[in-house]
């Protein structure tokens, strides 16, 4: 019985983890500066390529590479904000369109920088055997990263003075500013956190998929779907729940539909979520 169920459960857990790692940073931007950052998955791809370069081309240790990639992409996110999004604060549509431009620049920058050749990140992660069931190293890493990101974000948002500022900004930026909160400084932190979390999702994804310049971009709609499902507040536990719902829907859908249509199930849940939200808000 376990032989039949475990592959499904393991695939569900992996999908949920990747979605969460992508969506955590996206959700933060969607709820604090309040716009859909289409470029977010491309930050994840950039992070994955930096890890690949440091591990395969330079020969560094994988964990060191992950730390450096995290910091680098966090810094890139802050810089991009400094030169583009900062001028458009409070205009969600202009920000969304601007992020389309940023996405093209980052994605095709990667395309030019790391030529279109086939690349694969191979890392030897030890498997765990629990009473005959093999838990793959990739899944363990994914789950570990989810716990790490969840705890870090929960701690920062709920337990630190910075978190108070972030929540104040998310609720009412004008009021927050009038109370003396340095909104620009807070937003820089938000962008750093968002950018820094992205490469972790990219890392897990490229452990079982070859690297391509658009490997993470395909996930954008699912990321938006879970962020909408998670609701209006900055809540990472709800976000994880939303990831579980979408991932479970996609896994269950495999029983009825061919594999190519798993994404379609994600969209169906997204559309249902939007309609339900409208009906409820009335």
């Amino acid at each position, binding site marked *: 019985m376990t032989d039949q169920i475990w592959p499904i459960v393991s695939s569900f857990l992996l999908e949920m983890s990747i979605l969460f790692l992508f969506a955590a940073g996206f959700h933060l931007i969607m709820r604090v500066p309040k716009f*859909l950052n289409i470029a977010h998955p491309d930050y994840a791809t950039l992070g994955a390529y930096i890890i690949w370069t440091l591990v395969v081309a330079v020969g560094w240790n994988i964990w060191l590479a992950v730390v450096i990639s995290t910091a680098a992409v966090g810094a890139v996110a802050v810089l991009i904000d400094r030169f*583009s999004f900062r*001028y*458009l604060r409070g205009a*969600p*549509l*202009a920000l*969304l*369109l*601007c992020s*389309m*431009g*940023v*996405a*093209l*620049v980052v*994605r*095709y*920058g990667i*395309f*030019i920088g790391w*030529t*279109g050749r086939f690349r694969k990140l191979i890392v030897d992660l030890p498997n765990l055997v629990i009473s005959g069931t093999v838990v793959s190293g990739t899944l363990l890493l994914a789950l570990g990263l989810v716990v790490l990101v969840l705890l870090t974000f929960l701690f920062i948002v709920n337990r630190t003075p910075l978190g108070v500022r972030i929540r104040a900004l998310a609720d009412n930026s004008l009021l927050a500013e009038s109370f003396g909160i340095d909104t620009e400084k807070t937003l820089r932190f938000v962008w750093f956190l968002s950018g820094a979390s992205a490469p972790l999702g990219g890392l897990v994804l490229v452990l079982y998929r070859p690297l391509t310049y658009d490997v993470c971009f395909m996930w954008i*709609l699912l990321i*938006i*779907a879970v962020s*909408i499902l998670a609701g209006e507040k900055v809540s990472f536990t709800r976000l994880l729940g939303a990831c579980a719902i979408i991932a479970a829907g996609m896994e269950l859908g495999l029983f009825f539909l*061919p594999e*190519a*249509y798993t*994404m*379609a199930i994600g*969209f169906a849940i*997204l*559309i249902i979520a*939007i309609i339900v939200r*409208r009906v409820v808000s009335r």
Partner: protein
Amino acid sequence: MTTVFIAFLLNFVVLFLIYVIFVLGLNIQWGQAGILNFGLVAFAMLGAYITGILMFHPTASSIMQVGLGLPFLVAFPIAVAVTGVIAWFISPIVKFGLEELAIITLAFAVLVHIVTDNEAWLTGGTTGLMITSNLNDRLDVLTYNLAFVGILLVVALAVYYFTRTLNFSQFGRILNAIRLDELKAKSLGIDAVSYRMKAFVIGSVIVAIGGSLYLYFVVRTVPDLFPVDLTFILWIALLLGGSGNNRGAVLGMGIYMLLDMLARLYLNIPAHPEVGAGLKYVVTGLLLVVVIVRRPEGILGPRRSKYGG
């Protein structure tokens, strides 16, 4: 100038005119009605694929099992009408807010792409859909491209004048009123949703016309002929030139195509083909960011109307 080079240039003009038709469709939806459509390419795809299915002759050995073998002149209006009906069925989504609309339309485009990719019996899948065209069989490359420049120029001009007339008509003025202040428009008894639904269908039909002609020109299509990114290129062209302004939309498209052509001519490094292919997108992306940050109204800005809209 060699024949090959002239054919190459004409090919660009054809592509430019097709994209102009697309961007004029987008301009009705966004520039006039304020409907955010990130899935525009899906309607071009529907126009092209329905035309293809109507024109295809299925044989026992072909991957595609559906086809009526109709001539283009019959298939074209049917395909455009069917796409219009599909758009009409979807059009109630215009009730949603901007962000929701963006996601739903993008999801629709990806869905259409996934279906055409995977249902080979209907669409030819990744192997492609090939139609037989009299023009393609009889003419040499140069005359063929020249003929299409002529056909598309006529169609593009017709669409241009149609959208222009529409804009100055009562329908267009109501759309402008709804876009500028929906609440005020509603207070005057205007059914905003119904007008926006109509604008959505008209825009989609124009895009389907472009898609259908695109297939007739290239003869063979694969799903990747209509990448999801194409919608963003159209958006960039529209925003670059100035949304709501037909001339701006054409200018924006022209700038994009010029960049594309220059990239293919001068950045064609044999050892690194990715530089030319990628740089085009990087430059358009940068242009988009600069335009939105520095000149949000686009190069030409919105159309100045004598009604002040």
